[in-house]
């Protein structure tokens, strides 16, 4: 285990900061690792569910990374995927119950997608690739970082879909009535999942235009 060191590392050492900021751009789970696309298409019609979904996923990745990292030396390798699933499923059900208790409206909109966090590739990917081989604190930061990277893309996609599809942002009308009177219409296509895929495609394109090192040879 390469990261195990004898001296204590600073809590926010440059390496740990990188765990947080890396997934926002260079190793973004959606646009670079291409994980978690399914829910990114489904919950981005409006900003509010997208934000709640992003927060829920961040909580689940962070804490499942933390728990698995604590357990990493005791987990029998032969059943490690099952152990990971139990931890993730427990956390997801907890989040779902909390949403149902405290933000019922949002939980109705997210419906099945909260349950589907369990199968979200980002979580299993991070557990296998990072938490199984790193100390709890870096693993926790890695979870937060990947959750943010996922959330960032979700919110960008939701921003455009809600603005162009419904003419609102977070439920508030932003496109003035005078524009509608002049003949402007909301683009109904933006509400449907295919346009989310295209929006993500455009984001990937723009990101790679500015960040040439991501372009595959």
């Amino acid at each position, binding site marked *: 285990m390469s990261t195990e060191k004898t001296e204590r590392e600073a809590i926010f050492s440059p390496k740990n900061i990188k765990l947080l900021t890396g997934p926002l751009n260079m190793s973004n789970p959606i646009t670079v690792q291409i994980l978690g696309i399914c829910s990114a298409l489904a919950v981005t019609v409006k900003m509010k569910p997208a934000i709640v979904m992003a927060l829920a996923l961040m909580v689940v990745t962070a804490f499942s990374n933390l728990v698995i990292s604590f357990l990493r030396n*005791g987990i*029998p390798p*032969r059943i490690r995927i099952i*152990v990971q699933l139990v931890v993730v*499923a*427990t956390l997801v059900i907890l989040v779902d*119950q909390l949403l149902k*208790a405290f933000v*019922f409206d949002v939980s109705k909109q997210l*419906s099945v997608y909260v349950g589907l966090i369990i199968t979200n590739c980002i979580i299993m990917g991070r557990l296998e690739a990072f938490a199984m081989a790193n100390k709890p604190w870096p693993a926790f930061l890695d979870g937060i970082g990947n959750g943010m990277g996922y959330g960032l893309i979700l919110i960008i996609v939701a921003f455009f879909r809600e603005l162009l599809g419904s003419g609102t942002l977070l439920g508030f009308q932003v496109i003035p009535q005078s524009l509608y009177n002049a003949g402007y219409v909301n683009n109904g296509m933006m509400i449907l999942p295919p346009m989310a895929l295209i929006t993500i495609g455009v984001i990937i394109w723009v990101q790679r235009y500015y960040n040439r090192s991501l372009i595959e040879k």
Partner: protein
Amino acid sequence: MYTNRYIFTYAAVLVIVAAALLSLAAMLLKPFQERNLTIEKMRGILTSAQVTQANAGNAIPLFNKYIVKELVLDPKGNVLNTYSKSPKEDAPAFKIDLKKEYYNKSQNKPYKLPLYIADKDGKTIYIIPMRGTGLWGPIWGNIALTSDFKTVIGVFFGDASETPGLGGEITKPKFLNQFAKKTIFDDNGNFTSIKVVKGGVIKLPEAQRIHGVDALSGATLTSNGVNDMLHNVLESYLPYIKNHR
């Protein structure tokens, strides 16, 4: 390096800890979740009566303000219980489990029906809660009728798992707004229900268009579910309606 005994013990302990955690959470959060369901039910009833400002925050006070009586009926239309005290959510009618009662009805067993009576701007509104089956799961709703039980004031539908964008559209204003001012009895007093017509009410003879609404395109089975739910539920209240019209 790991013995089978270790692996089994590890798995067992892990699962028991996870189960204990989840049951604890379910127990602690249950009151909050039930509260939300109660509020949702009230909001549905109020929305059908066109109390449109009802939301999660004010549903309980508005419900207490507008609903004046909650009745429990038997299949012959006799009133088993009348409740007009506050808080309104403690009424026997409010606690009736429609799923159970309509199952009993389908089995020809005795059943009970709730009926809400609202007073809005001096006008009496009868609100009938409904339950039926859509394509993928249960659908439910409320229908608000004028004091002569003939004209629809408004409806509200909810669904558990209809296809978003197709059957799921039954909960949207575009579908719901069609119901206002339609009638469930014809001029001779015969029960007609409200038909959800595939291809649109335009397909009905002119005189019957007042008893129909447009079905949703791409959602025939959900539309049929709404049609059957309306017929089945309203039919159950006919004995009471006959006595009180």
